[in-house]
């Protein structure tokens, strides 16, 4: 345990955190991605859902995702205290105790799974339970401090929400929901490695075996390009499946061209070039990756809406 975590543990008094501190434990920014992709999964499904049931499903998926975030912060409070990006989180800053975060996370995790089951079906609840387990036990406790492939495998946890949304509506897992899963799964590594290049010192200090730390910048840049090429093929190819159509194809072509341009630029650069302009291209790629995912899922939603009006698809 680090000095920082010992210090925060000794100064934090239980029961004194504010409402906002507990809300921050849910990782609200990550939650917006969970809510959005789960909503697209739910609305793109070919089954009408009662609006109240749909609202409840999205809410409980979001709470389940938030519970994962709280349990992640509970386990990682020692390394969070060492990284600039995370040292203001509720536990390392001393506003919430680790025990409070653990109890909060477990309670919300159980409640969200049970309530999603009651509101929708057992498959959606089982997928949510597996997602929480995967993120907390497999990724956070198991892989993150052990292998540089942590982001690749851990990315699966963030890829489940649209699949859960789809399952909440249909009660099944289908090729369309697997494609949405695959889109996020393949997008996660280049997205996080671009961030890791920008935040290079942070992971070093915390001893997290990110690819940038274990294999260096060159290998990370090659990996970003390789994953982006595979992602582009998959994302554009999805236009010709059940979730795609002309609108999706147009969006996919534009955003994959932009993402590939940045990935190639990152691959052509070295550390000295990046230091010279304060990682301008890497920062741009990271920001673009956020828009990339938003655009693709908005296009999937647009295709579903047009299909509902009998206007979309290739037929």
């Amino acid at each position, binding site marked *: 345990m680090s000095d920082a975590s010992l210090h925060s543990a000794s100064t934090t008094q239980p029961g*004194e*955190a*504010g409402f906002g501190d507990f809300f921050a434990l849910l990782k609200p920014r990550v939650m917006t991605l969970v809510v959005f992709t789960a909503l697209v999964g739910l609305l793109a499904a070919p089954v009408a859902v009662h609006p*109240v*049931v749909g609202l409840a499903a999205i809410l409980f998926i979001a709470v389940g995702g938030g519970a994962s975030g709280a349990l992640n912060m509970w386990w990682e409070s020692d390394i969070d205290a060492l990284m600039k990006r995370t040292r203001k989180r509720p536990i390392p800053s001393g506003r919430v105790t680790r025990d409070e975060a653990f109890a909060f996370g477990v309670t919300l995790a159980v409640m969200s799974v049970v309530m999603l089951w*009651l509101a929708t079906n057992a498959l959606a609840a089982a997928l949510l339970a597996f997602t929480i387990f995967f993120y907390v036990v497999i990724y956070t406790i198991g892989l993150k401090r052990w292998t540089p492939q942590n982001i690749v495998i851990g990315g699966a946890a963030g890829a489940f929400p649209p699949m859960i949304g789809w399952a909440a509506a249909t009660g099944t897992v289908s090729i369309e929901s697997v494609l949405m899963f695959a889109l996020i799964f393949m997008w996660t590594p280049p997205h996080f490695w671009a961030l890791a290049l920008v935040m290079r010192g942070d992971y070093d200090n915390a001893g997290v075996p990110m690819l940038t730390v274990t294999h260096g910048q060159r290998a990370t840049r090659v990996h970003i390009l390789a994953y982006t090429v595979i992602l582009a093929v998959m994302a554009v190819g999805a236009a010709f499946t059940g979730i795609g159509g002309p609108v999706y194809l147009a969006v996919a072509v534009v955003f994959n061209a932009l993402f590939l341009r940045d990935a190639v630029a990152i691959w052509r650069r070295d550390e000295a070039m990046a230091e010279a302009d304060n990682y301008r291209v890497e920062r741009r790629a990271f920001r673009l990756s956020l828009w990339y995912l938003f655009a693709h899922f908005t296009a999937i939603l647009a295709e579903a809406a047009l299909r509902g009006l009998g206007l979309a698809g290739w037929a």
Partner: protein
Amino acid sequence: MSFREEHELHKRRFGRNLGLGLVLAGFVALVFGLTIAKVTNEGFAVRTPQGQQAPQGKGN
């Protein structure tokens, strides 16, 4: 006679209690809404003591 100035800690506790109260009220409203949505669904049915499915809801 003057009131003592409220301590920051009390403000924080009040904020937390108010937030929790609103969350619980929202949860109750959501469960109520879910119940209404489920029982008015055409496919909703309850099991009778004889083991037969007695259909309920507006569709029946």
